[in-house]
């Protein structure tokens, strides 16, 4: 444990990106053992790490409550107005945002053809709205917070827009991928003021991250 407070406060996402992010921080010389052994604590001042859900990382970094942070490109695309620097594509946490519906004849296509509009459940309303506008399709978006796969199985919607890494959850729920919308990987982001006032410290982290081998997906 270091005796001086670290210069940078780093926002680390909990959930799927956490393991690879902590491994990466270890490799560039930031000791994450305390974070790994303490599941409930959120703030680790000795190593300058704060942990939070991935979608909160841009919020903390934009406000300067954290200087830099790790989050998914999917999160950044869903919050496009956040004034943060996007510094590096880290390559890990690779997943795909897809349009999916129940196997068999595509209920989404049928709804579009017969009713002129399809109902789509998603957590990613901004990306989905942009995608359907760009592809010229009328949709009714239903924002859900929990398991999106449930929505088409119960008849709430015709299809879903959701993130998938391996496709297992979709398959187990009898859903098939109809279209791939985008591929997202983990990104390093920085607060716009810290990027200027703590330039040396941030560039140092950036250089050390670039020097590491890309992690496997």
């Amino acid at each position, binding site marked *: 444990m270091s005796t001086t407070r670290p210069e940078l*406060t780093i926002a680390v996402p909990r959930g799927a990106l956490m393991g690879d992010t902590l491994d990466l921080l270890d490799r560039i010389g930031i000791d994450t053992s305390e974070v790994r052994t303490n599941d409930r604590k959120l703030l680790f001042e000795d190593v300058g790490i704060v942990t939070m859900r991935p979608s909160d990382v841009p919020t903390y970094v*934009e*406000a*300067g*409550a954290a200087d830099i942070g790790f989050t998914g490109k999917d999160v950044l695309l869903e*919050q496009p*107005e*956040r*004034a*943060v*620097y*996007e*510094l*590096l*594509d880290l390559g890990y946490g690779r997943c795909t945002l897809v349009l999916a519906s129940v196997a068999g004849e595509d209920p989404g296509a049928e709804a579009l053809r017969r009713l002129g509009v399809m109902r789509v459940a998603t957590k990613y309303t901004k990306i989905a709205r942009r995608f359907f506008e760009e592809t010229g399709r009328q949709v009714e978006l239903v924002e859900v917070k929990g398991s999106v796969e449930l929505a088409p199985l119960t008849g709430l919607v015709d299809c879903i827009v959701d993130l998938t890494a391996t496709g297992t959850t979709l398959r187990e729920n009898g859903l098939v991928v109809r279209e791939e919308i985008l591929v997202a990987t983990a*990104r390093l982001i920085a*607060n*716009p*003021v810290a*990027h*200027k*006032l703590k*330039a*040396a410290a941030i*560039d140092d982290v950036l250089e050390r991250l670039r020097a590491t081998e890309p992690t496997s997906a």
Partner: protein
Amino acid sequence: MTAMHPTPSGTRDVLPDEMRELRAITDAIRGAFEDAGYGEVWTPAIEFEHVVGRMDGGGGGYRLFDDHGSVLRLRSDLTVPIARVAATRYAKTEPPLRFSSFAHVYRGVKPGRGQMRETLQAGVELIGAQGPDGTAEVLTVLCAALDAAGLREYRIGLGDAGLYPALLASVGVDAQRTAAILDALVARDLVRLSVDVHALGLDATTTGLLTSVPLLRGGVEILDGVDDRVDTGRLRAVHGAVSGAVADRLIFDLGLVRDLDYYTGAVFEIYDPAAGMPLGGGGRYDDLVGQFGRDLPAVGFSVDLNGLHIALAGEQRGERPRAQENPA
């Protein structure tokens, strides 16, 4: 629970305790502007869209109709109205002209960020003075104003809006690709910038130059190691024209761009460690006054007074930065 009588999202009331502090800040800044010879002006909060609208690169904004059906626009910055004043009310006066203003500006906001639609700004415009001396004068006034307000830890990021576009042109990048790359830079998306630069198919040295230049920021010494193809002349000239005290505040930033289209040369932003977002900024707009009929080079800045107030309070408490505004 009392009945709900809300103000529009992005607006708020200022009550006496806060107002006394704000007034102390504006009085101190007004004194610094007056000492430097910048006379205060008022311009209308509403102007004709066909007069000011075409200059505005800030997006969004509020429009309304008057009783003749003309489209009016709520003031979205301080610079464009003063450019109009300078060109029309001082059409024959020998430049340079020096103006200051304190006013609310109105901008459309992006939902969900707690941005203010109505913000109070203080600014100056120096019209008819070329860079680098004019730029140096305005940077000096800016530092004097922030000093007078009592801000201690601030720094001024100084860039050149023409530097990176000129570099792209010099290595043969066409207008369409230049626009895409500059768009990534304005969006602070250096991953997309790198992808777009690599897609140009240039040699490795040039590709490395184009991806590294936007990341160069620091003291004046960063200009020394830069490739000859990057024209740092204007930045060096500004550095040579300011006092040592002002120079110590500067962070030279080859990646600094501002999202208003009218900037032509030097651009700057105000940072403070107690604030997560820039407290304001400015730059040269040598083509703007000419659009109102009197071709004069110009430079100016504006400071977000609420952001400055929050930074001052933060410096006094010695705390981490906090968000500059809460949702109304």
